[in-house]
C-alpha cells in the first residue's frame, strides 16, 4: 500500500523532471532537472530495498557527474542567456516521431519479457557481498569488468589532463607562480 503510493509519487516526479530537462530553456535548469531525475531513481532503488545502489546512485551521479556538468555550464553560460533556440516545426515533428518509436520499442520490450519477482537472496545482499562479488575471481565474480573499467577510467583521466594541458593559452605578462 505504502510502497505503491510512493511509487506513483516518485514516478510522476521522475517523469515531470525528465520533461523539465528537455523543455528547460537553459542548460543550468536542465542540469537541475537531471539531478531531480537521478534523485527520483535513487528513491526507486530505495523502494526496492536496494540501499547500496541508491547510495551509489546519489554519490556517483548526483554528487559527481551532474556537479561536473554544472561546472561546465558555469564556465560557458551566462544567467541571462537563453541557451536553446525555439524548435521549429520540423524539429518538433521529428522529435515526436523518435519519441513514438522509442515508446513503441519500450512497450514491446516490456511486454515480451517475462519478469520474475526478485529472489530472497538478492534482497538480503549486504555491502560485504557486493565487495566480495566485485573482487571475486570465481565464475560469477566481477574482477575482470571491474579492472577493465578502472583501466578505461584511468585512460580517460589521463586523456582529459593531456587535452586540458594543451589548450591552456599562454597569458601575456603572467609570472610563474610559486
Amino acid at each position, binding site marked *: 500500500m505504502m510502497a505503491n503510493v510512493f511509487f506513483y509519487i516518485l514516478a510522476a516526479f521522475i517523469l515531470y523532471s525528465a520533461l523539465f530537462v528537455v523543455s528547460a530553456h537553459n542548460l543550468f535548469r536542465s542540469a537541475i532537472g537531471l539531478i531531480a531525475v537521478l534523485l527520483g531513481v535513487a528513491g526507486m532503488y530505495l523502494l526496492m530495498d536496494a540501499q547500496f545502489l541508491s547510495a551509489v546512485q546519489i554519490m556517483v551521479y548526483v554528487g559527481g557527474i551532474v556537479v561536473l556538468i554544472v561546472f561546465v555550464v558555469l564556465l560557458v553560460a551566462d544567467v541571462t542567456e537563453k541557451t536553446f533556440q525555439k524548435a521549429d516545426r520540423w524539429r518538433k515533428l521529428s522529435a515526436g516521431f523518435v519519441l513514438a518509436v522509442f515508446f513503441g520499442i519500450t512497450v514491446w520490450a516490456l511486454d515480451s519479457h517475462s519478469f520474475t519477482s526478485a529472489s530472497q537472496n538478492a534482497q538480503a545482499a549486504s555491502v560485504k557481498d557486493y565487495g566480495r562479488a566485485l573482487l571475486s575471481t570465481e565464475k560469477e565474480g566481477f574482477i575482470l569488468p571491474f579492472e577493465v573499467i578502472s583501466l578505461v577510467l584511468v585512460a580517460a583521466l589521463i586523456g582529459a589532463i593531456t587535452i586540458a594541458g594543451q589548450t591552456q593559452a599562454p597569458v601575456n*605578462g603572467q*609570472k610563474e607562480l610559486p
Partner: protein
Amino acid sequence: MSAPTTDTKAKSPTYQDYFINMGPQHPSTHGVLRMIVKLSGETVLGLTPHLGYVHRGIEKMTEAQTAVQITHLTDRLDYLSAHMNNWAWSMTVEQALGIAVPERAEYLRVIMSELTRIASHQLWWGVFGMDLGAFTPFLYGFRDREMINDIFEKSCGSRLTMNYICPGGVTQDVTGEFEGETRRFVEYFKPIIEEYETLVSGNVIIQERTKGVGILPADRAKAYGCTGPVLRASGVDYDLRKNHPYGVYPRFDFRTAVSPEGDSWARYIVRLEEMRQSLKIITQALDQMPKEGPVRTKLPPTLKIPKGRYMARGETARGEIAFFLVGNDSPKPYRVKIRTPCFSNLSAFPEIIKGWRVADIVTVLSTFDVVVPDIDR
C-alpha cells in the same frame, strides 16, 4: 559589470576577458577605492584603480583659508597619521614665516607623532590579519590602540582628528598624567609586540600568503616615488627622520627598519620593527623632554605668507607627506599642493599585482596600507 568604456588602457573586451569591479564598496579596499580587475580565471591580468570617491577638494579649500585654519584640513588627509600631517603643515608655515618652536613643544610633537605611528601600525596589523581571513588580530590591534587614543583624548580632547600640533608649537600643554600614562603604555606594549609575532608572524599560512607575494623591486619603488614602509621593505634605507631630519629627531638613537625582499612579508616585518623603534624614540623623548616651559610661540594675529615657494616634508606612518606652499603676501596661500604618501605608493600597485591571484590583490593592498582619503584628498 562589463568592461568600463572609459578605460582606455583596456583593449576592446573579448569573450575571454573577465572584468570584475573591486570596490568602491568592498571590504578590503579600506574605504572607497575602486579597482577594475581583468582576470583570467583567478589570475590578475591587469588592474586599473579609479580614484576620487572621497575627493573633497582640500587643495581648493586651502585657497580660501588662513594658515592656521588649514591645519584642521590636514588631519582629514590620512586620518591615521593626523599628528604627523599637522606637523608637516606646521613646519611649512613656520618655514614661511620664520617662527621658532619652543623646546617642549618639539618633544611633544615627537612623542605624539610616534604614538600616532604606533596606533596606525596597530590598526594596520589588525586589518592585515582580517584581510588574510583571521579576524582575531583585528580585535587585538584595536584593544591596544585604545590606550593611545585615551592618551590623545586627554591631551587634546579628540581621538582621531586631533589638531594638536599647530603652527608655533602645540595647541595646549599636556596634563600631569601624560608622562606616566605614556610610559605605562610603552611598558605594556613592548611584550605585546611579541604577542603579535606569535599570533600572526609565526603562522604558516600567513607566511605562505605573504612570502614572495607582490614583490616591489627597489628600482621600481624609487621610480614610483614610494615612501615609508613600502619603500623600506624594498631594501631602500630611506627615512625622513634620519635622512632629512626635522624637529628634534637627530637627538634620538633609533634605527631605520629595512628589509631587502620587497615582498608582502617584508612590508609586514618592517612595520612591526617600526613599532619597536617608535617605542624607543618615545622613551628617549620622555627622558629628554623639559618638564615645563612654553608649548606655543605667540603668533601675530594675521599670518601673512610671504611671496615665494616653501616646502616641508614629514614622515607619516605611510611615508612622506610634503606640503608645497606658494605664498603671495596675503594671509591665504596662493596655492597648496599636498604630496601624500598613499597616492604615490598606490601608483606602483597596478604594476606589481599583475600575474597574481585575486586573493593576492587583497594581501598586497593590505601591506601597502593605503588610506583612501589620503589618496583622494
